[in-house]
């Protein structure tokens, strides 16, 4: 019942993910951070098999960092997306990763961009996208209300509408969501939307 969705606005991109870590009928934790900050200006929201998700996204993150040290310049969002897709494709017919990815980034000369990469290594550059059962609801809401060049307030409002739909219409809806934003100032956490607060402390990844 994992939900990851994202959209591109005016000079920024948002990625939203639920934060439940689930195994069969048990919820391990409700504050799992599934949106990795890949580098200073990229976000990688991933959903799928728990072990594969952590393993694959960390592997991509370290390779993106290595590229930067080797070449003295960061990867563009498009290059990072193609690299990620390539790794999924290589593993596909041997030992596939069961991970779906939304990669959002900001490049100085191009602006914000969002890439859809699914577990069988399809790659699409998109303005709005979603994975999981929640996608049935969030895509419908975004199709109705999205327009290009939205401000941050408008976009977050749309995100809240999507979360409301997911919470009210999905049978086992995740209680908590994290919203992260990437713009010219970098990639960072924007907000949490919690309906069940974890009593033990601050959200961690």
């Amino acid at each position, binding site marked *: 019942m994992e939900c990851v969705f994202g959209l591109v606005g005016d000079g920024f991109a948002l990625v939203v993910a639920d934060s439940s870590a689930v195994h069969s009928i048990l919820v391990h934790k409700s504050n799992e951070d599934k949106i990795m900050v890949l580098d200073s200006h990229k976000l990688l929201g991933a959903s799928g098999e728990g072990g594969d998700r952590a393993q694959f996204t*960390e592997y991509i993150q*370290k390779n993106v*960092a290595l590229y930067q040290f*080797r070449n003295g310049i960061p990867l563009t969002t498009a290059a990072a997306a193609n690299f990620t897709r390539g790794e999924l494709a290589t593993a596909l017919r041997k030992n596939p990763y069961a991970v779906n990815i939304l990669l959002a980034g900001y490049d100085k000369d191009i602006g914000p961009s969002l890439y859809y990469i699914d577990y069988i290594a399809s790659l699409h550059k998109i303005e709005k996208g979603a994975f999981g059962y929640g996608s049935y609801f969030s895509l419908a809401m975004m199709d109705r209300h999205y327009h290009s060049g939205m401000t941050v307030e408008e976009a977050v409002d749309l995100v809240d509408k999507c979360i409301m739909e997911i919470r009210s219409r999905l049978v086992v809806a995740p209680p908590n969501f994290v919203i992260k934003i990437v713009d010219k100032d970098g990639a960072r956490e924007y907000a949490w939307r919690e309906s069940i607060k974890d009593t033990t402390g601050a959200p961690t990844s």
Partner: protein
Amino acid sequence: MARYDRAITVFSPDGHLFQVEYALEAVRKGNAAVGVRGSDTIVLGVEKKSTAKLQDSRTVRKIVNLDDHIALACAGLKADARVLINRARIECQSHRLTVEDPVTVEYITRYIAGLQQKYTQSGGVRPFGLSTLIIGFDPYTGVPSLYQTDPSGTFSAWKANATGRNSNSMREFLEKNYKETSGQETVKLAIRALLEVVESGGKNIEIAVMTKEHGLRQLEEAEIDAIVAEIEAEKAAAEAAKKGPPKET
């Protein structure tokens, strides 16, 4: 003696590994490099041989980042350096991936030294012809460190050290003049050591400063010139002070 040059896995009768010693010769011919550790700042400096007019000097970087908190300068065969630096960069990321921790300076130094040693024992290939100066801050305790490795694969920590051409003169200078410094004083000490053996001026030296907050920063030519001018002024003032008082009488 010539017979023991061929394969490096062979000891000479008097216990030498000649290939390793020849590699050390190659280092002695390389450009001068100096490293100084302060309490909150670590500085690396290298001699920049005059670049050809048509060459783009930005592509000849002699002080490089291995990770956010580790940097390296070397003296010797630059092509060998490229290979070693690449392996070290991969190891820094690999370490982060497997144990979710950045490397310590000692760990990556031991790794690089281990690579250099491997090529003194496995047959058929020559050793790397370079010595490295590795600086960095411990990712958790914030303690600054400076290490040196050489072609034999030995490594050790230093408060200040020099390698490459005329390293003995620089090391002597550092031994005489080293004291615990911080911030700009550390930078000045490194430049003063380098100026002992290198022609003065920002065109001929490359300096990089590492701090805990800002990581590695390469100094601009103008900045180096300004500091060199300060140092020359201090030297002149010291000379004048020495000569001054006797003339008063």
